[in-house]
């Protein structure tokens, strides 16, 4: 059985994000560091757990982005994924999720993946679109926010638990091939092992130029980014740690909260 896990590289910290003064562009510090999207770590781990349970399973991992995005695929290989693919795309501060999904779908088409996993959303844009859109483009059934999955021994179907609001859970059965988006907390992602990291470092990733996959035009764009309005007073305390502590005590006592 072949599994494809789609992973995204995101900024290590939002400290590296700023807005230019006219408020027309998002600026990313060129020396910023990056890591794998947290939700995708859970997806990679889930694929590895499936491989451990069902012999003969292979896990491919795919990352879309500029040169630096290959690191996310290598990290997944460090966790134990068998093969890495890097779809090389231009550096952008915002990419239309439909374009990303189209790239993934065009790569995956005809490759007989029985299961495709993505994280439920990316921590940077919080959109949650690439998984379901990719599923639609590949005509695969899709269930989002999976907190539990169990593939049948004959690999024909998966019993999936989706997380709903307020702690409710929905149980459903999905016939394979299918795409699932993975919610955090489904497992505990393993740290890459030294041997896997070394193997990943030297491994040849399959590198595909995005243009070779004929991406569609953007259907949407980000304009006028800004810092959000504050919904509350947002009083910043100043001074030493001790001064701030005393200041907060006074404020809370004044408000009869302490």
């Amino acid at each position: 059985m072949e599994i494809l896990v789609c992973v995204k590289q995101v900024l290590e910290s939002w400290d590296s994000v700023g807005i230019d003064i006219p408020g027309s562009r998002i600026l990313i510090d060129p020396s910023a560091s990056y890591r794998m999207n947290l939700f995708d770590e859970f997806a990679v781990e889930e694929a590895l757990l499936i491989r451990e349970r069902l012999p003969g399973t292979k896990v491919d991992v795919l990352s879309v982005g500029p040169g630096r995005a290959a690191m996310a695929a290598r990290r997944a290989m460090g966790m134990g994924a068998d093969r890495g693919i890097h779809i090389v795309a231009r550096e952008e501060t915002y990419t239309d999720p439909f374009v990303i999904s189209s790239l993934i779908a065009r790569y995956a088409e005809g490759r007989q993946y029985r299961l495709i996993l993505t994280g439920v959303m990316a921590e940077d844009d919080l959109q949650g679109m690439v998984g379901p859109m990719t599923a639609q483009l590949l005509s695969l059934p899709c269930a989002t926010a999976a907190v539990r999955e169990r593939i049948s021994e004959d690999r024909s179907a998966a019993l999936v638990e989706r997380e709903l609001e307020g702690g409710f859970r929905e149980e459903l059965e999905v016939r394979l091939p299918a795409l699932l988006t993975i919610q955090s907390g489904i497992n505990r992602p393993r740290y890459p092992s030294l041997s896997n990291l070394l193997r990943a470092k030297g491994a040849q990733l399959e590198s595909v130029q995005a243009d070779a996959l004929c991406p569609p035009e953007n259907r949407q764009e980000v304009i006028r980014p800004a810092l959000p309005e504050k919904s509350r007073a947002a009083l910043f305390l100043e001074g030493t740690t001790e001064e701030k502590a005393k200041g907060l005590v006074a404020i809370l006592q004044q408000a009869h909260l302490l």
Partner: protein
Amino acid sequence: MKPSIILIAEHFQGRLMPVTFELMGFAGELRKLVQMDIRMILLADRPQRLAEEAAGAAEVDIAAVQVPGLSAYNGEAYLHILKGLLHGAGASYICVPHTSQGWDFAPGLAAALRAACITDVQAVEPDGERPCFVRALYGGKVAARVRPNTEPTVVTVRPGCFRPPARPISTGTVIVTKAAFPPGMMQAMRIRPPEAGDPGLSQARVVVAAGKGIGKKENLAMIHQLAELFSKAAVAGSRTVCDLGWLSSRLQVGLTGATVAPDLYIACGISGASQHVAGMRGSGFVVAVNTDRTAAIFNESDVCVVEDLTRFIPAFIKAAAAGGAPRAGGARGDCGTE
């Protein structure tokens, strides 16, 4: 066909969800910018009663689509039926609540309709002659406006951002049609209700919440010590802390956990991503402690403390004791603030 704004109703276990009415409020805001009719679609095996309730809430006509066998939400069925109803139907804007149902089918629907798709929309604003949609990026640090470049546009609307419309003078009409349940690859089986929430959390007057910034499980001790300064206080956690097993998931505050509205909410080492904020926005007074001055949580706070919590919390506890703060449940000391 005249371009229109289409709303997709949400119901769960036989009840119309409040987000359905908020969606009508969103449509009202959108209609200020584009002159279009508003219509709602409701899918269910027995849609009549739900559709009448929706029609009574706003001057919106409801297409009550009866789908035999659709007794509970099924993402595949929704996607297939809505695709069929909306393809070529002249919808300019297709609006869906940003919920576990909405984000499940809306993106796939957009892909199928060759539509733009903008999720988790918090506001709608003019962009020249057309609307653009405001949503958060980078964990809430940036508010971005997204401009669709094509039609239709599928929008998922964040709960709690739009007011339901005031009671209308006349109600919408309900038209019942039928659609077949598509044969498919997904079968909804059952809904599991949540474990009982922590009663302490829902009744607490003060909630002290720990996020990823506490660094390690051992630092929860100071979170507990902080909570002990107050009467009727409870300790809670962000999703990350509960996923790591440092706190029981019954103590998770957020979109998929508990919603709390205590008099005082102290967020320690919490970045303020929208999923967490959704669970505590109604709090009376919010104090946040975080080392990142630009953390999104500070946009939702009354008092902002840019400090390492492992240094600040002990300093606060010390200052509270020295300042003669009343002990939990006890009489007031001579605080000297009157």
